[in-house]
């Protein structure tokens, strides 16, 4: 049974539609990340699951029960907010226990459970303090403890790490991953940070303008982006896009664009003579070319960003900026001519008009 099902869900504020006919099923024990640029509706969707926003149309069910008209407290969910949202006038102990008190749990059991949860999260020394006396990371841990203690059916995280500094963010990310491994509670996690999404998610739901662009495992989304938006949004450094025209050539195809002609076998893609396409290739998939064979992209190195192990080389080719991520020892001089080759397996082709991937569906 699915833990959460959204069917034909809409959300509108007056005349503005924020979420349009959204369908999604989240499995039990799954860690699903809503990812997307700001304003894509991911937080709104999460708040609709939580019951903090009305559902304008469609149906949301949690644990097999339609929750459209249930109050947040009756939905079997717990939520962690971006700015922690701790009760400032209560001690850490009371913050964590507040939800249990509502459920009329006996005081002795509350004490036992609060102690157990705070032991897991290392909060024991702070139970008597007020939230303002804690650091950001500790406060977020209290917020997680407050969510955990209710043993909810579903955890909802609304950008929980965006208020923390980079180092703490990495640390907390690992903690959340560990927590999910041990608790196995179904989790929905909203973020705009693709690193968080990639590392935490079983499945990523990529949203844009209130519409799901793609659902898939991090690997699927990275390797088989379904359209131009997904391809451009996922992956750092960003994918290179080259507009090209397709021409048939014997048993293969040629792509003409960005000042070069590339030849492909094209068996993985739906191609037609005269198609306008966008070729996508990730910077790490460009390799320094040694011989003269194969498909070559070449130009003059305009910009070199040293990353440590690697260097990002940006060069112009036919008026188009292209980046290649190469091992640092292969890093060229600035303004030197560069030549990079790539394998056909590593490319992505998209319809220039619709932006849809031209990849043939894999028959499995």
């Amino acid at each position, binding site marked *: 049974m699915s833990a959460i099902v959204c069917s034909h869900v809409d959300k509108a504020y007056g005349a503005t539609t924020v979420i349009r006919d959204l369908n999604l099923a989240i499995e039990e024990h799954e860690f699903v990340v809503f990812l997307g640029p700001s304003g894509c509706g991911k937080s709104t969707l999460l708040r609709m699951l*939580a*019951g*903090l926003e009305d559902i304008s149309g469609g149906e949301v069910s949690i644990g097999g029960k339609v929750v459209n008209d249930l*109050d*947040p*407290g*009756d939905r079997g*969910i*717990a*939520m962690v*907010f*971006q*700015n922690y*949202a*701790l*009760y*400032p*006038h209560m*001690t850490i102990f009371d913050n964590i226990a*507040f*939800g249990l008190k*509502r*459920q009329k749990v006996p005081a002795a059991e509350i004490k036992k459970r609060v102690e157990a949860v705070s032991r897991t999260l290392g909060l024991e020394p702070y139970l*008597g*303090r*007020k939230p303002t*006396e804690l650091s950001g990371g500790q406060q977020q841990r209290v917020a997680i403890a*407050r969510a955990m203690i*209710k043993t909810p059916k579903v955890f909802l995280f609304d950008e929980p790490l965006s208020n923390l500094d980079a180092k703490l963010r990495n640390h907390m990310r690992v903690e959340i991953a560990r927590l999910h491994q041990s608790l196995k509670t179904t989790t929905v996690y909203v973020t705009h940070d693709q690193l968080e999404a990639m590392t935490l998610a079983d499945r990523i739901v990529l949203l844009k303008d209130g519409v799901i662009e793609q659902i898939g495992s991090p690997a699927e989304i990275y390797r088989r982006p379904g359209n131009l938006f997904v391809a451009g949004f996922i992956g750092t450094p960003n994918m290179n896009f080259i507009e090209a025209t397709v021409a048939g050539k014997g048993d293969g195809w040629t792509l003409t664009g960005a000042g070069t002609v590339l030849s492909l076998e094209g068996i993985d893609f739906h191609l037609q003579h005269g198609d306008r396409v966008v070729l996508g290739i990730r910077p790490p998939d460009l390799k320094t070319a040694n011989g003269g064979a194969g498909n070559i992209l070449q130009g003059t190195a305009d910009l070199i960003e040293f990353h440590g192990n690697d260097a990002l080389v940006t060069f112009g080719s036919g008026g188009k900026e292209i980046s290649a991520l190469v091992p640092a020892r292969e890093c060229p001089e600035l303004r030197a001519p560069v030549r990079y080759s790539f394998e056909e397996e590593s490319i992505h082709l998209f319809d220039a008009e619709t932006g849809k991937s031209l990849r043939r569906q894999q028959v499995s």
Partner: protein
Amino acid sequence: MRPGRLIAKAVLALAGFLAVFPLVWTALNALKNNVDIITRVPKVIFTPTLANISYILGRDSVLTGLYNSAVACGAAVLIGIVLGLPAAYAVARYPNRFAGDIQFFVLSLRFLPPVAVAIPLMVIWLQIGLYDTLPALIVTYSLLTISVIMWLAIPAFQGVPKEIEEAAFVDGYGAYSVFWRIALPVAARSLIGAIAFSFVLVWNEFLIALMLSSSNAKTLPIVASELSQQGMNVPWGILNASVVLLSLPPLLFLGVLSGFLNSVFRQKKS
């Protein structure tokens, strides 16, 4: 110390002196005999007397005024709290299309000069037959306290982060519990200020009280002012003592409130 800081401190000290000195002088004069007050050279050292204070406290009119003031202001502030705070919370958190109008209307009572408000009210109370009674004064003052408390409490409630209330909803609490257990305590600091301000406002209120009372419902400011209506023979000591008496309740009220605040918000040291 840098000269800039020195000047700043001097200005601060001067401002503090200007603010506090008249109060201290009033308090001192309340303890002086009239001969010590009416001297060419102000006397700082004198033989203190309690005659003024005992005279004030011995007069029925003063005690009645004190009683009237306490009841009228206390009740009005209480009504202001009971009606004003929930109203302010509703406007702040569940605004409808009339929220802005409500806010404006509530304050409009304070835009008008008090006389403009007092005359119609006086007519109303005369018609109903409640003129010169405490209930009339309480209801009238409640209009003031509700408006002031609402006006100051709306931003206080808006200042409570929404997520905190949402977290409480997720924790299973309903709208009323969230108001009692989250919004009120979190906004308490600003709310106490609003309540204290409304109390001071009605405690010091003069004009409306003057127009709504003739003998029975006279409040302390009216009684105190009557003490000065004795031509050239102003009993300065008695006047000063009545001013002290008038100033004490707001001070006590603020003291109790801030003590209450400290007990609620004192940081627990572990």
